[in-house]
């Protein structure tokens, strides 16, 4: 008969609390096989590049949009179907753009993993 090891069933927090008996000293130092190391380096470099592009685009949106509204106050007076354009720019416009940006970055990040880190 195979005996299954008994495991305490707890919530993640409790699990976390109970697991924290160890003190400072690491049980095993992190290491990677040489082949893994090389691939990890490639993936890291490529992911960093793509992440920075995404963050830069995000910065363009959330810094550029307020700057635009600040520079062109007349946008408050222009209305589309009765709504000031500048209000649309803060209340509605950012959300679809953010959702698209998230989707785009997700695709790109997953691509790197699919191609095993090859450029």
């Amino acid at each position, binding site marked *: 008969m195979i005996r*299954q*090891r008994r*495991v305490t*069933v*707890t*919530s*993640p*927090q*409790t*699990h*976390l*609390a*109970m697991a*924290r*008996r160890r*003190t*400072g000293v*690491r049980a095993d130092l*992190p*290491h*990677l*096989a040489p082949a*893994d*190391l090389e*691939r*990890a380096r490639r*993936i*890291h470099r490529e*992911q960093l590049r*793509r*992440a920075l592009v*995404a*963050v830069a685009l*995000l910065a363009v949106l*959330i*810094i550029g949009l*307020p700057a635009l*509204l*600040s520079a062109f106050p007349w946008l*408050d007076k222009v209305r589309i179907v*009765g*709504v*000031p354009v*500048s*209000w649309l*720019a*803060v*209340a509605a416009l*950012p*959300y679809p753009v*953010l*959702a698209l*940006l*998230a*989707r785009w*970055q*997700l695709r790109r*990040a*997953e691509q790197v*993993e699919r191609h095993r880190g090859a450029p």
Partner: protein
Amino acid sequence: MIGAAIALVVLATLLIGARGVAAIRTTPDFLVASRRISPTLNAAAVSGEYLSAASFLGVAGLVLKDGVGALWYGVGFTAGYIAMLALVAAPMRRTGALTVPDFAEARLGSAGLRKLSAVAVLVIATLYLVPQFKAAGLVLTVVSGTPYWVGVVVAGAAVSVTLALGGMRAATYVQAFQFGLKLLLFIVPAIWLVLQVSPDTRREALAPVEFTRFDHPTPVVFRLAVELTITEPTPVTISGQPPRLLQPGHYTAATGTTWTFAEGAAVPGVDGALPPGGERWSRPLLDPDAAGYPLLATLSVLVATVLGTMGLPHIIVRFHTSADGRGARRTAAITVALLSAFYLFPVVYGLLGAVLLPELFLSAGTDTVVVALPARVDTGWAGSLFTAMLTAGAFAAFLATSLGLLLALSGAVSHDLLPGATVRRLRLTTLGAAVFVVALALPSPHLDVGVLVTSAFAVAASTFCPLLVLGIWWSRLTARGAAAGMVVGLVASAGVIGAGFFLAPMPGLAAILLGQPALWSVPLAFVTMVLVSLRGSPPAWANAAMLRLHLDETERSRQRP
């Protein structure tokens, strides 16, 4: 009806929680079971935990108080998940760390850094929790008419009871359900309100006129003492006394009084508040206290909310329930879409509130605009029904976030700061933390829910954001550098915000730089971390410790089966 609605929320939550717990028991290990959860469900859970009373009530309240620019809060709260997706989600999941203190130890191998991170968790969670309790107390006050302290104590009791019954938060299902509930309870009343108000009101909401005269006899209930500036003789009836004509000058509306302003009377001025509908109010940039630097103030809030999201202690643990790094990344991406749906709606409450309940800005009660609107629009059963729906939603938001944060807070105290944790002590610490937060919320009814939550984001952005970003992407980060950067970030953000509570309000630029320090405290923390790290050298294993966070799981398992 309102009590019943709140009870229903708590009951439904507990029932679903019980189901989740039953499902967990059939599997050997909770963590293995939870890894079957799909990114979509997990994203709903993240959103459920994230949407707090500050989002449900605070954003609309800030629109009424500070103007259309307050809508940037919603944008920042959502955009944070893009930073999370691009920089943190997948590698963080691969460390196996459930909290930032865990991450600090796993990546940099320093017990001291774990303690320092726990202190930051403590500060962030407290800054985040106090406004939640304040909002819950205020809502109960508004709908039931009891004093503020009763509301806060009842909210504290509700949290403690839910905690004592246990397990509520454990299941992802509960949080996912909470998200659906909050979305429904927020969107349906918003649509009803838009359809219910007259076409004139709708037109006026989009082309607001400054609130300078009362257009009907208006009772204003002062739950807190407020300084009013009257500029012309104003007929007022104070708490049922005979009508008086107040001469120009400064007056104090005492706590608990009701001032009824006659039709056509001029609207008094209030320090630090903007009458809704004016030119400055309509500008889509944040300019609190009329400091005169709207672009800077807006960017400061955006930097804090976007970069702070990745360090929120109650959110990071949620990403651990993803199957792997890829699942965590997908969770973050879907969360952006889910939050976008929610944050399209606070504007409805804010703009309608500016037309229908502009007097709320006089009594520092703008945080209640969401729950006060239905009764203003319809005095019949429909109004009561939607008030009950919104109250229940606000309470659900309060419960979800508070429980997550209380557990994060007590976790940090009982196992990061003190040695040797037991379940019993964890439970006691949680109750103690609830009492502590209630005690802090009692004297702070004046604080803005949205502003205080943003302070929590600013502290997270100045401490955990540099730690996580550099820890994940830069192998030369040393434990000493990380500690120095965190201390500098903590002092620059929390210290400055804390000092702001005691100092007199500053004029102009200083008000923004001290009230919303993220714009300079985050770069300062980054620079400190980098410079101090460059002076030392990381241990030999640091490179591997960082690089393995970027290897995707299937690749590695093929190498070492």
